[in-house]
């Protein structure tokens, strides 16, 4: 059980108590704007791109090489970038709020 939040591009946050699955699936369940998860989590698109806050990146971990292949040419690709389909919800993520890139909080 972990409360996970998504800061949408307009600055509003959607959050929910999530028990299982990936962050991408949780975002789709919550109707988060900006997360499409088009390929279903098979590392074939980058429509679930999120930014992990600096103070969380050690716990969440950086993007894997496979993720970088999908993300490296995406707008707003940074060291904080992850594909949310590759992040499995766990108790350690309780309180995590990720950003949808390209929103009001980003230049």
């Amino acid at each position: 059980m972990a409360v996970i939040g998504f800061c949408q591009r307009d600055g509003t946050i959607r959050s929910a108590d999530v028990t299982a699955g990936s962050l991408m699936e949780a975002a789709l369940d919550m109707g988060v704007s900006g997360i499409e998860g088009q390929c279903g989590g098979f590392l074939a698109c980058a429509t679930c791109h999120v930014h992990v806050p600096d103070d969380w990146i050690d716990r969440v971990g950086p993007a894997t090489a496979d993720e970088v292949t999908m993300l490296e040419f995406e707008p707003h690709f940074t060291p904080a970038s992850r594909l949310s389909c590759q992040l499995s919800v766990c108790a350690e993520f309780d309180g995590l709020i990720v950003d949808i890139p390209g929103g009001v909080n980003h230049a």
Partner: protein
Amino acid sequence: MHDVSTVTVRRPDPAGDEDVVFVRGFRALKVALNDWRTFSSDTHGFLVLTPQDKTRTFRQYPFEFDPPMHTEYRALIEPFYKRALQPAYAERIQDLVRREVDALLAAPQCAVISEFSLPLQNKALAILLDMPESAATVWMNFGTDVFRSGSADALVEYLEQQTDRVDREEDDSIFGFLKRATFEGRPLTRDERLGFAHITFAGGRDTVIGMLTGIVALFAVHPETHVAIQHNPKLTASATEELLRFVSPLGILTRVCPHGGTVEDTDVAAGQRIALCYARANRDPAMFADPDTFIIDRKPNPHLAFGSGPHSCLGNAHARLLARTVMTELAQRVVRIEVLEQVLDTYEAPFTVDGLRYARLVVRAHARHDGES
């Protein structure tokens, strides 16, 4: 194994009088697709390998532009295509696919391209464009590829009629949407309206037909795939991505290089074109292990079937939804697809790859009865 190195080749058509740099490797292609400053789309009619379309006096929007104009034009039309992500849209596609599979099962035999894929593609396009399904009857007459079937003039004439129609009567279709749309605070010009509509009819046609034909062929030629999805419907997501990689319905496009550049170690002269070999890159062994094998749960699968970068396919959500729905419906209702006749499509060989691409495919679909697998 396919050669995926970059190579310069004389354009492979009867009128070919141009040396084109063919980009065939995954990494090189992905870099080129994202380097729009060097490899530009800012042209009129030269983004296909053999320029065929002399019928339009307007550009295709946003396809034949570079950022930043391209970005603004794309943002204008993107919401219309994103409707494909809505649950109500998926229900309409499911209802349509169910009816088309009814027809497939009722027929003693089916010429897949003309009797299954062509009608389904056009009726699904009617959903995408928010047009009545009856409009698809007109579009089917354009053939599977408007340029190869000589229908390019008829398409332009049709788009002009529809553009005139919504000037007289408002509706919610793509034509009405384009009439109401604004760019930089002004209404779209007539050429802009025609250009946005043209790319949808021209670009979303043979590609989707190839994808749909590929699904039927996949289940016929690789029945183990059909059975696997019957037993585990969740495989449709990964199977769709693998089908897109394996078939690569859009085999090749080109870009212009106005100021010169390089691809890997190959120089590209100012004014020369490069060919974007999506199908070849999708079989690059440096990126895809065992690339000529269809692996139903391949992951990662960073295929370039929808391109990459600013020009990535606007219709990708629609195409994915349609593919998954067809796979699911066939898996649930068809026990076996028997091939009666097949002729492979070699139109773009040797710059694409073999793999479920057909010029003609005739099958008989056998209905699944309760408990049968």
